[in-house]
Each structure stands twice: as structure tokens, then as C-alpha cells.
């Protein structure tokens, strides 16, 4: 005998066979409530930009709160897409002046066929070089990695690992600054970007490597912004410059991934969640804008230490609770 919910869905023919199969199985999942959608949206907007892993938090928090949500379900994907779209729009809005300064000379160069020499244009091409490996690895690896490691216990362990990465990132910066100062034969000087090395001084290989390292963030618990900020610090950037480069680098990746999935949002799978998706997009966008605004101010003087401590505590407590619940 089929499950009554599955029978009702079959009559209306509103959902795909995969969801019907899920409803027929004894392990079917609850529908996302408006409150849960709002919490997940704010969580995504904040955790995507803070170096604390958004994927890790969206795996761990529902588990800790006892929410029976299948985040890999076909009907959940459009909601996630909307949240990413909101986050990307917030980044574009916050950095709109930077993007105009970057894109204007780039477009001019493409039209004339000659590379310009302004720092903004070089930053633009460095971002393009960094985005290519991130996009390729993202498209090829995101689903297999998330599918293989999308467990709250694994996410909690990697959140602790993320904390160590942030902690050692500060050490890497000290080494990089000392190496740059030694190479110049003077004490570490401060550039216009507030650090020993301006963003435009980054090499092409370094940009490609930093961009590729974003793929590590597909592991739940490892933060995309954390990885890129640490890589920027290791390259000799100030905290502010590393954060700026990380957020600028993340924008085309997050925006591109969201735009590619818009047909899913507008398709039959997305319609039941469209209301929640729109509200979630706005909430995630507001949370992301507030976060990036805070972080850019914080990193003028602040360091990664507090985020490392948070990751250690949150990861350890989550691991204990999840293991205790079985």
C-alpha cells in the first residue's frame, strides 16, 4: 500500500518521481516551515562570508535543532539557489564601486585588444584567472564531494580543521611579511592597500592557485572565505586586502552558480518553495550585506583568531552533541 502523502502527490502530479519515492519510503522528510526557511536564510547569509563555513553550518544546525530536512532533495535545491543569489547580490551591491573600477578598463582592453596598465584592470584579470579553476572544479566536484561528506559529524570535524587553518593562517602571514621585508632589505612597509603587498602585485600562478583552493570549501566545515583569506595572508596581503580579494573572488563564483540554477528555481521543483525562496533571498542578502560591511571594518585591525576559536568550540560541541544523539 502506498503512503497517503505519496498518493495525494501522485493525484496532483505536482512533484517528480524522486520525491514520490522519498514520500513512499519510511524515511520521508518534513516540509520546510517558514521559520526554518528564515533561520536557514540568515544563517547562509552570515556564514557564507564569515570564515566559518556556510555549508558546514547548514548541515550541522538543522541536525542540532532536530529538523528532519533532506537538504539533498530536489525540492530543496531551488531554495538554496535563492539564498546564494541573495548573498551574491549583497556582495555586488557592497563592492559596486570596485566592480565598476575593475570592469570598465577590462571592457576597454577587450575592445581595443591591448592590455592596460592600471592596478584595477590587473586585479580584474587576476580575479578572472582565479575564477576559472574555481568554476571548473565547482561544476565537476561540488555534488560528489557534498554527497560523500554531507554528514553532520564530518562537518563538525572539518569545522575544527577550519579553525586550525585560520589559526595557522596568521602564522603564514607573519612569515610572508618577514620574507617580503627581507627581500626588500628593509622593515615591512605599508602600501596603499594597508599591507606589505598590494593585491595587484599578485602573480598569475598565485591567483590561479588561490582560486582553485576555493574548491576545498565544498567540504562541509571548510570555509570558502576562510581558505581565500588565509591564502591571501600567505601571499603577503594585509587582512583587509586579503578579505577584499576573497570577497571579490567569491562574487562571480557564487553569482554564476546561482544564475546557472535559476531555471531550477522557476521550474516545477521550485514552485512549491517560491514564496520561501523569495523571502529567503532577501533575508540572506540582508544578512550577507551586514556581514560583509562588518567584516571589512573588522579586518582593518582585526585578525582571524576569534573565528578560529569559534570554529574549535562550535565544532567540538557539535561533534559531542551529534555523537551523543547517535
Amino acid at each position, binding site marked *: 500500500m502506498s503512503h497517503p502523502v505519496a498518493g495525494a502527490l501522485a493525484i496532483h502530479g505536482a512533484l517528480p518521481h524522486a520525491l514520490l519515492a522519498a514520500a513512499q519510503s519510511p524515511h520521508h522528510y518534513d516540509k520546510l516551515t517558514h521559520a526554518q526557511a528564515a533561520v536557514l536564510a540568515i544563517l547562509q547569509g552570515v556564514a557564507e562570508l564569515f570564515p566559518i563555513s556556510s555549508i558546514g553550518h547548514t548541515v550541522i544546525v538543522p541536525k542540532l535543532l532536530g529538523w528532519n530536512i533532506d537538504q539533498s532533495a530536489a525540492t530543496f535545491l531551488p531554495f538554496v539557489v535563492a539564498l546564494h543569489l541573495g548573498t551574491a547580490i549583497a556582495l555586488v551591491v557592497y563592492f559596486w564601486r570596485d566592480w565598476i573600477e575593475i570592469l570598465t578598463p577590462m571592457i576597454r582592453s577587450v575592445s581595443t*585588444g591591448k592590455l592596460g596598465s592600471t592596478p584595477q584592470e590587473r586585479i580584474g584579470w587576476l580575479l578572472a584567472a582565479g575564477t*576559472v579553476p574555481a*568554476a571548473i572544479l565547482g561544476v*565537476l566536484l561540488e555534488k560528489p564531494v557534498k554527497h560523500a561528506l554531507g554528514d553532520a559529524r564530518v562537518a563538525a570535524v572539518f569545522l575544527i580543521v577550519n579553525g586550525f587553518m585560520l589559526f595557522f593562517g596568521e602564522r603564514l602571514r607573519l612569515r610572508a611579511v618577514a620574507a617580503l621585508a627581507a627581500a626588500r632589505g628593509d622593515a615591512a612597509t605599508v602600501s596603499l592597500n594597508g599591507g606589505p603587498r598590494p593585491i595587484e602585485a599578485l602573480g598569475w600562478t598565485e591567483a590561479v592557485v588561490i582560486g582553485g583552493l576555493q574548491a576545498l570549501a565544498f567540504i562541509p566545515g571548510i570555509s570558502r572565505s576562510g581558505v581565500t583569506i588565509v591564502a591571501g595572508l600567505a601571499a603577503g596581503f594585509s587582512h583587509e586586502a586579503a578579505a577584499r580579494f576573497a570577497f571579490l573572488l567569491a562574487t562571480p563564483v557564487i553569482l*554564476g552558480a546561482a544564475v*546557472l540554477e535559476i531555471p531550477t528555481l522557476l521550474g516545477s521543483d521550485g514552485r512549491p518553495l517560491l514564496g520561501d525562496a523569495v523571502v529567503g533571498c532577501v533575508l540572506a542578502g540582508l544578512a550577507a550585506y551586514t556581514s560583509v560591511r562588518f567584516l571589512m571594518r573588522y579586518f582593518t585591525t582585526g585578525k582571524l583568531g576569534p573565528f578560529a576559536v569559534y570554529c574549535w568550540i562550535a565544532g567540538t560541541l557539535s561533534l559531542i552533541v551529534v555523537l551523543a544523539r547517535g
Partner: protein
Amino acid sequence: MDQRTTIFLGAIAAAVLLVIIAGFYWTGHMFYPTGVHHKHAVLAIVLAIGALVVANFNRPSSAIARR
């Protein structure tokens, strides 16, 4: 053949290859991952455009003009 011409021809070849890969993904003939993947196809097209931009910066005529 100078370096600029080599980069130009390499970028054009890469663009053509990426368009072919995009076609394979769109029609489901690519070996990894198997199946129809429109998102992968769109990415391949974007990368092909990127390769054309690289080719544009390394046009042999541009090199001649600089000299």
C-alpha cells in the same frame, strides 16, 4: 613562430575544443560526468569566450602594430 602567435593559435584551438565539449555536455555524449549537463555546457562556452579574449590580446596583427 613567435610566442604571441603561439598563444593566439593555442587560445583559438582551446576555444574550438571547449565549444565541442559544450556540445557533448549539452547532448549527453561527454564521458565525465555521464548524462546531459546543461550547466557544464554553459561553463564550457564561458571558458571558450575567455579563450577568445586571450586570443584577442595576442592577435598577430596587434603584435605587428606594437612593433
